[in-house]
């Protein structure tokens, strides 16, 4: 077993041109998503390289919308040998998947020296209960993007260091009539909103759970919701944010209709692409701000990992594929839409080139990446928070009532 592992890893690390006889003729079914991070073309081209390096193995790729990813993994869990061999999964699912036995424990397949070479934040993406259920692949967090031209017009020289400053700068921009709504967020009733909420909670040193009990009724989490609501009340946040997803944020920002936006890594490349954006060249990226006396920067762990469903009959081949996709060389070559998990990558010239400010921001953000609640019933907790926070943002209820109601509902979960 060990020997095979070494051989497979060897083949993966040695990248191209090395054929591996250890892998039987198989077709792997792999499930990816079609939004954010690596584009379909990127993944296809990485896979082509893998197939070239491993002649016996074919990979059949499937891309689904993020919203369908969880459903398909769940449905395939009962599929026997016909299900997937490799799946991409979100950081919020390993607890649930591990508890249900959907994913293989691959702790033993991961070389010991990887632990230090890869960011801790990346590892939390695939870990639950001290075991690893795959390899982190998309190391992602939300950054603060700002439009330098608008800041210049409003006479702002430096980007905000704290959320308070950000609100102040937004007020200035609004006051000077540069923009009606300087801020744009993805605050539709969705996971996207929870990511923004988590970022703000992290900035305020808040916590979701303490000793298994909901702790979001006071402290940092409460401050986060209050802040969100305040920016709407003041007219700093585009009210349509309440029905936006990440792609809407990108579009509004790329149209020059927002001064600040919180979004994932992939927006950096696209907002600076003249074909996709009217503000190309005027976009700067920074870590999401902190809060005076509490933090200097904030970020949410929005990473994704690659795992092997427990019913896959091709675990070895699947692992070879995962090892190939997550290796440093490959990640370094496709670092425009998603940043590598490897610490060393962040000083690689080919990674840094053209996105120096992103890399600089990443170094800071990754170190403060804050996880969303790591509980098996996370999806339900998130749904409850989404609904109640959305009610606050829509002015249907007060902050305290909403969080109180959410806590009561979280306790009702079976």
């Amino acid at each position: 077993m060990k020997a095979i592992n070494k051989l497979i890893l060897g083949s993966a690390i040695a990248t191209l041109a090395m054929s591996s006889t250890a892998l039987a003729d198989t077709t792997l079914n792999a499930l990816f998503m079609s939004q954010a991070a690596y584009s379909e073309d990127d993944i296809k081209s990485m896979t082509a390289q893998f197939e070239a390096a491993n002649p016996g193995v074919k990979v059949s790729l499937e891309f689904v919308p993020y919203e369908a990813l969880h459903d398909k993994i769940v449905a395939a869990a009962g599929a026997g040998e016909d299900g997937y061999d490799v799946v991409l999964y979100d950081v919020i699912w390993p607890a649930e998947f591990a508890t249900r036995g959907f994913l293989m424990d691959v702790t033993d397949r991961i070389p010991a020296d990887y632990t230090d070479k890869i960011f801790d934040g990346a590892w939390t993406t695939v870990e639950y209960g001290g075991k690893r259920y795959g390899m982190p692949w998309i190391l992602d967090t939300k950054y603060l993007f700002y439009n330098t031209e608008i800041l210049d017009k409003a006479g702002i020289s430096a980007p905000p260091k704290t959320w308070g400053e950000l609100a102040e700068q937004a007020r200035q921009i609004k006051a000077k009539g540069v923009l009606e709504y300087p801020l744009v967020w993805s605050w539709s009733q969705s996971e996207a909103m929870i990511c923004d909420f988590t970022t703000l909670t992290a900035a305020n040193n808040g916590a979701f759970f303490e000793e298994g009990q909901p702790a979001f009724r006071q402290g940092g989490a409460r401050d986060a919701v209050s802040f969100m609501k305040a920016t709407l009340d003041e007219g700093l946040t585009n009210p349509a944010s309440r029905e936006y997803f990440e792609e809407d944020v990108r579009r509004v920002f790329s149209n020059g209709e927002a001064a600040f936006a919180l979004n994932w890594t992939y927006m950096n490349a696209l907002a600076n692409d003249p074909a996709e954006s009217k503000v190309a060249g005027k976009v700067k990226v920074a870590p999401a701000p902190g809060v005076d006396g509490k933090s200097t920067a904030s970020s949410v762990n929005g990473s994704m990992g690659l795992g092997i469903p427990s019913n896959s009959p091709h675990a070895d081949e699947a692992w070879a594929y995962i090892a190939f996709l997550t290796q440093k060389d490959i990640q370094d070559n496709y670092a425009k839409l998603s940043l590598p998990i490897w610490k060393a990558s962040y000083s690689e010239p080919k990674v840094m080139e053209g996105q120096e400010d992103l890399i600089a921001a990443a170094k800071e953000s990754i170190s403060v990446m804050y996880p969303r609640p790591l509980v098996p019933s996370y999806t339900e907790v998130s749904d409850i928070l989404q609904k109640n926070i959305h009610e606050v943002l829509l002015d249907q209820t007060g902050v305290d009532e909403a969080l109180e109601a959410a806590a009561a509902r979280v306790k009702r979960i079976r």
Partner: protein
Amino acid sequence: MFGRRRKQEKWILLAPAILVLALITLIPLANTFWLSFTDTRISAIPSPVRFIGLENYIYALTDPEFREALYRTLYFTIVSVGLEGILGVAVAVLLNQKFRGHLILRALIILPWAVPTIVNAVAWRLIYHPDYGALNSLLFQLGLISDYRSWIGDPATAMNMVILADVWKNFPLVAYVALAALQTVPADLNKAAAIEGAGPWKRFWSITLPWIMGPLMVVMVLRTIEAFRVFDIIYVMTGGGPADSTKTASFYVYQEYFNYLRSGSGASYAVLVAGISAVLILFYYSSAKRQATGATA
């Protein structure tokens, strides 16, 4: 004995349909019913199934949010099927008149029905878009609104906007059925009523409507079944938001199965949805029967 042969024939004719339904839906249906009394969860790790009686149902029905979702579903069903009915009949009455281009209009009317639900949902989502939506632009240019506003992002309007999209797609079917039924109303009946001194409204209510009620009911039953389990259009247009204002009962079924992986509990939600739907249909059916006998009497 040919009576026995007839009986055999009855089952032979039914057999293929029953076989397909049994394999694809009836057996899963029965299984779902059983699951709804257990605490089964979706898991790759085998665990014993526990019979828990009505616990799932009690959990569901004591949940004020699920009850709200049921009311919401009922609201969606009644308003959208109701509007489809009213609009459909009105359009049928209009199309039944002679005017220039009535044949062209008749052909055009069926088009929304041909638009796939997903396309319909996506198209209306674009029309309602808060920034670039055609609805905002149109109302703004007509001077009816002074600022672009949120349509499906505002809990006050979201459900009604989804209903509008649903009505737009589905009223043609109702209109077509009503139109066809209208054409079977004997002219003598209206003439007789007119001679008796009944005005157009009176004639419509007491003659035309009862006459077309039978056919109308069939299409309303179909629409009610579809509306009560509405999912796709909402899944695509609003995902249940904003603030749960479009989250229908089917969403709870979906969540329990696919998000929370509680198949036992999800089954009970599903049985509740199907049960209420069945009650609605039976209610319809019996009133349709009454209407039909009333019309012929």
